[in-house]
């Protein structure tokens, strides 16, 4: 595909037929008219839902290992890279081998912009963009997701993890 749009010169001097508008208007009208008879793209949302591809970036979640412990080591890189300052991490020491775990891990979903930087920067593959996009809150406090809402078992996230390993590894 030719993507070199910069070299396309704009036609400055219009032809006579373009100058009198009418044929161009008819052309434009015919485009919309044609589209009126084409099939719709609309999905009737609550009844019909689309199937997200693996590249879809829904809300960020934390990976929960099979032993029910989060993979995260609270390094804080996600909080650092987050352009919207949505993530807040407080680390603490744990007796387990990884030494460090997130005592508090909160994502303010009102601030999150779903850019996926946190996922990209994570050295532990511990924060993953899920396919969940249905986020509704009635009070602001509900929009602050803490560990209980963020932790998702690793088997539910396998598609995305495989995708990341294949294309972003």
């Amino acid at each position, binding site marked *: 595909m030719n993507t070199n749009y910069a070299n396309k010169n704009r036609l400055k001097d219009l032809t006579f037929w373009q100058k009198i508008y009418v044929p161009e*208007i008819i052309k*434009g*009208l015919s485009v*919309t*008219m044609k589209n*009126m008879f084409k*099939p719709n793209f*609309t999905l*009737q949302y609550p009844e019909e839902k689309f199937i997200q591809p693996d590249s879809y970036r829904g809300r960020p979640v934390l990976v929960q290992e099979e032993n029910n412990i989060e993979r995260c080591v609270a390094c804080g890189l996600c909080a650092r890279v987050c352009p919207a300052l949505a993530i807040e991490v407080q680390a603490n020491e744990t007796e387990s081998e990884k030494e460090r775990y997130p005592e508090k891990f909160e994502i303010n979903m009102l601030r999150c912009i779903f850019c996926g930087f946190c996922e990209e920067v994570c050295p532990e593959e511990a924060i993953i963009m899920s396919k969940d996009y249905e986020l509704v809150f009635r009070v602001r406090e509900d929009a602050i997701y803490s560990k209980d809402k963020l932790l998702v078992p690793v088997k539910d996230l396998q598609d995305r993890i495989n995708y990341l390993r294949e294309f972003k590894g």
Partner: protein
Amino acid sequence: MNDFVFYTVVTLIKLVAFVSVIFLSVAYLVYFERKIAAWAQNRVGPNRVGPLGLLQPFADVLKLTLKEDIVPDAANKTMHTLAPMISIFVAFSTYAVIPVGPDITVFGRTISLSLAPGINIGVLYVLALTSIGVYAITFAGWSSGSKYSLLGGIRSSAQMISYEISMGFSIAGVIMLASSLQMDEIVKSQHGWMWNAIVQPIGFITFVVSSFAETNRLPFDLPEAEPELVGGYHTEYSSMKFAAFFLAEYANMLIASAMIVTLYLGGWQFPYAETFNISPMLLVGLQIGAFVLKMVAVLFFFIWVRWSLPRFRYDQLMDIGWKVMFPLSLINLLWVAIVTMFMK
């Protein structure tokens, strides 16, 4: 029953019928505007309220009525309230002279199928009232105390005055052919296929373009150009005052299409229907049907254009108004003069 009582009752009936038909058509015009926009963009459009979304207009009206009526502190309260009233008054009173069908005979009396029949200055009446419509928009813009509204109002008045000239000259061609200012006569002069749209195509184009400009429809909706002026002259309006402007805009669209149909597309006439040899009542029905059908077609065209063409820039708008439409309407006048000379 004397004539006076009879005609009073008939006129009242016609009045109620007209107003309710207009209200209903405006409501569904909005509905179809949204539907056609959706179709042109491969969408579905409103389909949640009632079957096929047919109750959507009522939901909209209900929402607007329930909204808070906000008058800005900086606004001139009287003018601010007056403006939407003028707007809606103009929109509705214009219908008085539009004939939707031929005269019919009921109980031995002739009834004209327009609200104020036989007005011998019908066309002038329409022109005069639409000119008052400019005041509504200018007042709204000026009294809101907002820069966006003011700019919208000023643009609107400049635009309407500019295009009224070419509109007037286009109509002059029609009047020359019909030798009458009376709407009925103009309709009758276009018997058969002698539609003015065919006889004087240039005039037809200038008139249609001017009507677009007069009704502030795309591609000439500069008074409410959203990207530049927020909402234009009605930026500071809410609730039913906003609804009044909204209603007036669509009512004006109805008038404009009625005018196009009446002046250029043979009005209520079905070509050569008189020769079909059918019963008079059926004939009248056919003719009213023809009028409605032509109106629907023109309205569809209005909406279709809106969802196809981009907006003109303001200087382009003025250029077209003065440098293109005005000379074209003069040429049309010349053309009509020649045609009239040879026809007589």
